[in-house]
């Protein structure tokens, strides 16, 4: 099965307790693994001020999940995030393949030699 990398950022309500936050993150990792995906990392990006109010909140607790898996995982994960009351916003992307720019690197080296 083709396993593609995905990156999901989701924003939780800021007034959640540590327990509630942990519960949400456990649910996410459980969900990914249940649909034959692999969690690479769950990163806490911290509480941030929102640029505009979302779900009547002015702050949000940002989390980043990197995982690999079939497209079905994304479908199920997004369905869960959509239904969850604690998640106020989420976004799933394919990580940028151009992040490492080997083309530029090699051309620079050739010139210097």
């Amino acid at each position, binding site marked *: 099965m083709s396993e593609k990398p995905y990156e999901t*950022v989701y924003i939780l309500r800021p007034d959640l307790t540590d327990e509630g936050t942990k519960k949400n993150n456990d649910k996410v990792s459980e969900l990914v693994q249940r649909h034959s995906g692999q969690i690479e990392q769950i990163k806490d*990006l911290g509480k941030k001020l*929102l640029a*505009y109010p979302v779900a009547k909140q002015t702050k*949000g607790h940002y989390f980043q999940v990197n995982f690999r898996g079939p497209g079905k995982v994304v479908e199920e994960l997004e369905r869960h995030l959509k239904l969850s009351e604690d998640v106020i916003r989420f976004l799933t*992307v394919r990580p940028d393949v*151009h992040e490492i720019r080997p083309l530029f*690197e090699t051309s620079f080296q050739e010139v210097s030699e």
Partner: protein
Amino acid sequence: MSYSRTPSTTSEFSAGPQNRKQRKKVCRFCADYKFPLDYKEPKILIPFLTERGKMIPRRVTGNCAFHQRRIQEAIKRARILALIPFTTIHQP
């Protein structure tokens, strides 16, 4: 006889890039290829926005087409995540 205005040929000439003392802008992402470009970092994207939160065209910033496309995508993603505003003026 009013020759206060300069002839049109001269004014066209003076409007040329030679007389404007304009330095050629370089795409900062090409100049330093390790410069990070990430939709999760609003600090990087804010210089490419106007005060009202609109994207600055590449003829102003001097970005290359390749990187302007990346910036464009990153800005759109950051807006969805409420990291940068869609607009600073809100409709009542």
